[in-house]
């Protein structure tokens, strides 16, 4: 059930998983979902509005919140948004975004990039 975790969240005293700011974004979503149930277009517009002021980096926090709250629709929506946001981004951008480091041997990465150089065409500037 969508709201079990939410209840648990309010019961927990020291909750580091979901900061207040994030909670105010995520928690109203179930209500809105129920109201606009089958109307996809309206939901899309609402979602676009919601994310207009959210920086891509904050999306990771939103995702973790939705994951913790076990809220599948919001999780899918945020993942979809991240996918759209990173689709044209560079490898470096993606590393920073996901908090990853390259673990290639020296020269390995270069070889890969060279072999698939065509996939780097048209990538957004960082």
């Amino acid at each position, binding site marked *: 059930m969508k709201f079990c975790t939410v209840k648990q969240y309010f019961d927990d005293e020291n909750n580091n998983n979901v900061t207040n700011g994030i909670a105010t974004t995520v928690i109203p979503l179930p209500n809105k979902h129920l109201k606009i149930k089958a109307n996809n277009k309206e939901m899309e517009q609402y979602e676009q509005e919601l994310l207009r002021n959210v920086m891509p980096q904050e999306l*990771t926090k939103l*995702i*973790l919140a939705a*994951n913790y709250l076990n809220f599948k629709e919001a*999780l*899918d929506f945020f*993942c*979809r948004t*991240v*996918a759209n946001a*990173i*689709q*044209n981004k560079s*490898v470096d951008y*993606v*590393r920073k975004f*996901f*908090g*990853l*480091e*390259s*673990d*290639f041997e020296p020269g390995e*990465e270069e070889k*890969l*990039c060279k072999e*698939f*150089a*065509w*996939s*780097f*065409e048209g*990538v957004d500037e960082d």
Partner: protein
Amino acid sequence: MSTGYLPEAIVENILSRLPPKTLIRFRCVSKTWLAFIGTPDFLSKNILIHSILVPNNTAQNPNPPFLLVKAFNNQKHICNFLSYDTLDCLFHFQVKLDFRSPAQDVYLWNPTTSSSSSSSSSGLSRLTPVSPRPNWYVKSVGFGFDPISNDFKVVRVVERFVVFNIFEEGLSKNSFRKEIEAEVYRVSSGLWRQIDLGPVIFGFQWVSTTYMNGVFFWWTKQEVDDKIIAFDFSDEIFKTTSLPEIGNADTYSCKLTVLNSFVAILVIPHDHEVMRSCFEIWPHFVDIWVLIEFGVKESWNKLFTITTPSTWRRPLGFWKKGELFIENGNNQLVLYDPFTKIEKNLQLNGIEEYFGLFPNYFQVVP
């Protein structure tokens, strides 16, 4: 796995929504992502193959509503419109086509204006010969739908040889030059309009054609380098792409088709000693190549090689998720799943040699 900020399951959720070009680039992020995303090996169930076989953005690249399966016997064209989702036969027509000047005129046929959707009509109904050009030879024709202007269009490439006199060394000689033009016909206006061919060369003949989402494709044989030519019905521009290295032109027969929203080719290598007609392919292999980015030769990926059973005659095209339509030795339509290797006979009989399959992107209004 070094997960960074997000757990693996969520990273998978995000990556599974990305197109193949992006995924191929992101394999350079880290070793773990390289393994995670995978290689374009058809039979693996990795994220990269999934992005090629399964449509992600169905709003931009919708599945066609119908598949048109055509069989040909003497002068009779037998057309079956199958639902793309269920493969049930929705409409069935038989048309006898009787042309006066076979190679020069372009005819349009609207199946919805035939007598009734379930009966066979022996004659033509509502065909309009589309302005022939005397003395010009029709090199290539394409037909499609422009979703922006909401109009059906025909593109035609015509060629002629112009003979003229020249004076050389005191003698009058005949010489000739080749003129080639491209034109587009809009069904709504009923008019032809000349368009720029650009640097595109149409070669000797086209080997195979296909159509997807408002773009018509030809595979043309040229002297040096075979090419795939694309014509976008919306912006009315020709583009080309080279083919991958598949070997010498004489040693394969090939079919141009589409897989999901990508151009794909089915290549059947021929044994030199056992050179058969290109419609008999046993015992042979079919190589499946997919083009991730049109215009980029390096983005061709050989997905898979199928060893063809003796019952097959030739492959026709793809259905959903990489399943293949095949014409078998009994002129029947068969659906083959390369993952399970199971064949399903669709109970549609074709006759004689020509058995074509066309993904039909047009909304047919009964």
